[in-house]
């Protein structure tokens, strides 16, 4: 489903059509946003919670959405903020029990019931976990979703040049990990 963003924006601003338009919005973007979040939090249960928070925040903040950016960019921005906040809170909760971020995320990855895929795919996920959080975000968005640097710039608020450098470093680091493992 690829709704006309302009029409949706108009309907979202009309009180009598708002809920219907938002329902369409959820159905249109839920999968994309789910995978965007899931790649960062790894477990399905956590991704589900963050996705729900994302849409409820969007619903409650509809009046603040002025249409300066695309609806999709706005939703991605909320989803990214919610994801990073969720991870920061989780980090705080696990501060004493787990040595570092990577271990915490590795535990998340291994404990997930909805984990399948082959050995190489899992190896890539583990390599991605060694990256700093922002680099992990950039790598996931570029590698798996093929989001353009320009789109990423409007979602993350980081310049195209910095995003390109970030992705380049991420790729090099993952390649190094692979080469050391062989």
């Amino acid at each position: 489903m690829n709704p006309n963003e302009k029409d949706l924006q108009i309907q979202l601003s009309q009180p009598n059509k708002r809920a219907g338009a938002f329902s369409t919005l959820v159905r249109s973007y839920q999968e994309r946003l789910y995978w965007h979040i899931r790649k960062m939090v790894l477990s399905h249960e956590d991704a589900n919670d963050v996705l729900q928070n994302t849409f409820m925040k969007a619903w409650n903040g509809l009046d603040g959405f002025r249409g300066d950016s695309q609806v999709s960019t706005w939703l991605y921005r909320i989803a990214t903020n919610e994801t990073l906040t969720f991870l920061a809170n989780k980090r705080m909760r696990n501060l004493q029990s787990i040595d570092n971020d990577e271990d915490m995320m590795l535990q998340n990855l291994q404990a997930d019931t909805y984990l399948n895929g082959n050995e190489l795919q899992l190896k890539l996920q583990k390599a991605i976990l060694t990256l700093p959080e922002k680099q992990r975000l950039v790598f996931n968005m570029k590698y798996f979703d093929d989001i353009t640097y320009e789109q990423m710039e409007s979602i993350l608020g980081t310049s195209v040049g910095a995003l390109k450098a970030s992705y380049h470093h991420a790729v090099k680091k993952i390649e190094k990990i692979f080469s050391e493992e062989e």
Partner: protein
Amino acid sequence: MKTNKNISFEEIGKELPFSVPENYFEQFASRIDEQIGYKSSGARKLFKPWMYMAAAVFVGIMVLTPVSYNVNNKRVIAQNKDSYESYVLSQVDETALMDCYVDDASKK
């Protein structure tokens, strides 16, 4: 993007090693619908717009028919009453009618 030991990103591919529970997205969307107070699409699909129109017309007819009947009925009764009075008056001459009024007044 080849690595030194021939492991490549191309070989790994872009698929994620994750899955979701069956019907997850359908259920998720319905849950959000509930939270924002939007009637689920299932309920909306059950009745098509023309069905709502037909129901509205039917209810309208049912409500308005007795009203219209009563109004018409009262009009007929009123007309009958008028013509009955005219008939009685036409059968009585003016003198008899005056006698009747005078008798009635003297009794009171």
